[in-house]
């Protein structure tokens, strides 16, 4: 491994600036942990409710550092063959048939287990890349516990062992980022290898800036009203609290409908954009005296 790999960022402020330049407004927590993950060479585990920008963060880091993004989307039942590598059986068979009769078995065997017949999957791809890489392992909590074991080697030593070929070690450490909606606890072993960031809804000021940067046509006043209302909604006990993405959607909706103030009628008419459950809508309507 290249021991003197230069860090991606020089300071915490630089992280904030460069992420902002690609349209991701980060708070202190995000900027600090991204900076540390890069500095200490550790993977970053981001946990938090849906729609706060966990996946966005990985994309933004990739864009800000001119790195390629390699993404492993986890789902129930994902296995080694989908995450690490697979042998291309069809091609191997073809090769064996082609060599039949005029080649010794030893030569054939050595040949079919070589680079050419390997199908790299995201984890191996990320390890083997020479260019700067951001490895995003999305929705880790969806995968089975066995996959976590698989990740341990990759994330702590940045290497993959292939029994037939030997160990592939990263020439350049990727910036690894794992996300989780915490539908289940990840194992202690995995968590210990990562820096932990709990990404929650942003504070009012930051959310205002995010909305304005995404929907610049909104007036300051309307944005302010929007963010205030969403925060009140979040403070209620709802089944699904509105996320940042939904605040932005709400802003776009109001814009499209040509509404320039967020009064009772506007809220009543567009509440469905932010609250997706019937029971939540009923509750919000009653508690905010909208009927």
């Amino acid at each position, binding site marked *: 491994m290249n021991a003197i790999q230069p860090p991606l960022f020089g300071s915490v402020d630089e992280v904030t600036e460069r992420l902002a330049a690609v349209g991701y407004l980060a708070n202190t927590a995000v900027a600090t942990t991204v*900076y540390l993950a890069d500095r200490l060479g550790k993977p970053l585990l981001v946990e938090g409710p849906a729609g706060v920008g966990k996946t966005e963060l990985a994309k933004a880091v990739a864009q800000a550092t001119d790195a390629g993004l390699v993404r492993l989307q986890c789902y129930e039942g994902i296995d080694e063959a989908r995450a690490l590598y697979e042998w291309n059986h069809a091609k191997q068979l073809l090769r064996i048939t082609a060599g039949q009769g005029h080649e010794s078995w030893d030569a054939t065997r050595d040949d079919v287990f070589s680079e050419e017949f390997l199908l790299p999957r995201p984890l191996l791809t990320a390890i083997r890349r020479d260019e700067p890489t951001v490895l995003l392992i999305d929705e880790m909590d969806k995968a089975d516990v066995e996959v976590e074991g698989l990740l341990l080697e990759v994330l702590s030593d940045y290497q993959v062992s292939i029994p037939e070929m030997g160990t592939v070690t990263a020439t350049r450490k990727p910036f690894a980022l794992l996300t989780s909606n*915490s539908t289940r606890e990840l194992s202690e072993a995995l968590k210990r290898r990562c820096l932990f*960031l709990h990404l929650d809804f942003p504070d009012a000021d930051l959310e205002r800036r995010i909305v304005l940067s995404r929907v610049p046509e909104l007036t300051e006043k309307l944005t302010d009203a929007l963010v205030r209302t969403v925060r009140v909604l979040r403070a209620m*006990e709802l089944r699904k609290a509105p996320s940042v993405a939904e605040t932005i959607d709400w802003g776009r909706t109001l814009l499209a409908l040509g509404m320039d103030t967020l009064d009772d009628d506007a809220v009543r008419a567009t509440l469905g954009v932010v609250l997706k459950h019937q029971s939540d809508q009923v509750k919000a309507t009653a*508690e905010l005296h909208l009927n």
Partner: protein
Amino acid sequence: MPVTANEHGLPGHLVDFVAALRTHGVSVGPGETVDAAEVLGALDLLRREELREGLAAALLRRSGQREVFDALFELYWPAALGAGSGQVHVPRIEGEDPDTPDGPVDVDALREILADLLRDGDTDALRALARAVVDALGQAGASGTGIRGSSAQPSWSAYQALRVISPETLLASIMNGLRQPDDSDFTDEMRRREIRDRIAQFRKMVTDEVRRRTAEQRGREQVAKTAVPKQAEQVEFLSAYAEQLTLLRRTVHPLARRLAARLAVRRKHAKRGTLDMRRTLRRSMSTGGVPMKPAYRKRRPGRPELVILCDVSGSVAGFSHFTLLLVQALREQFSKVRVFAFVEKTDEVTHLFEPGAELSGVMQRVLREADLTAFDGHSDYGGALGSFAEFYGEAITSKSSVLILGDARTNYRDPNLAVLRRLISQARHAHWLNPEPRRQWGSGDSAALRYADVMPMHECRTAGQLADVVEALLPV
């Protein structure tokens, strides 16, 4: 001043901090401590917020631990010592003696300043004010009257400071000040909630500040022991106050999901049954009597049925509330859940726990809509069990698991053990969850030990314990 530098310098201080986290139930291993030390090396120590986030990233592993972390961080890495240099001055009544500028605090003027700040929602100014108020009231003596206690030491108390200012009472006047003639109910409600939120924030600032000042005076270990909040999962049900209960309620869903996920895993692992001798032998006929392919018994994926009897009397309110919420969240794991509530009599409340029902109001509806009382509204376990057997006895079948939730305090009435024994003999499993500490079982009017003779009883004081018990109990 008890706040002294650690003899091992910064690493020593970090180790102390980690030790304090451990005493509060945040498990931090040596590996994490080393990470934290690396963080200290990589960051600019003068930028406190970055330091806070950096340490949190290295030391914490779960979001529920953040509150404990923040409280301890304030103690171990304080922003300032002493009163700090505030820009906010606390108004005082001019004393007769012009030599002592520190006259009694002018509470009315102070409340006006606070009202202005709450209206504008200026967080930094509010924090500065909290700092100044705690300082002024602490120096001036207990009630802000200027009379010091016999000890010359200033004493800080969040309770007293908040009682003197009583920020809650400002809500109405702030609302009045902001009201405009054409405001709708909606705008009004929005504003009320925002200001209430800010008042809660201010209260927290005062509490934090008091904790910090007390730590300077009495040593941070002392304060860390008593004044740092507990993690939601470790809060005891029976002594939890409203705020903690809200927090607990938020942990219900993740907890239920976690349990559900673990249950699913266990079910998957248990997919294969035992060897089926008869079928294996029959199959071997086709291979000349050699059993080539063994046959296994298929597990019936029969989903367990659950019958829950829950004491909802005032004495166990926090506990039963929380448990019922958990039960609702777990409903999808069971083919059939029937929920019964009792105080003196038992009534079925299953219909209130439909999936998707509004969680937070369920308890009030249980108390309002179910027929639970007969005479005085004090819990009567004997009577409740009797009426359950009489009206809903058929709910318990050989497939059902019975869960009884309550403290078994019968107010010295007949515990009706015979009926309970009969009910349990019909059920597949039966367990009793008791929110009281084990050492109090059987004391006073508690019939816990007598019930424990009849069926297994588990101590279940915190959400963490509850999760353990439920996971161990649920039949798969």
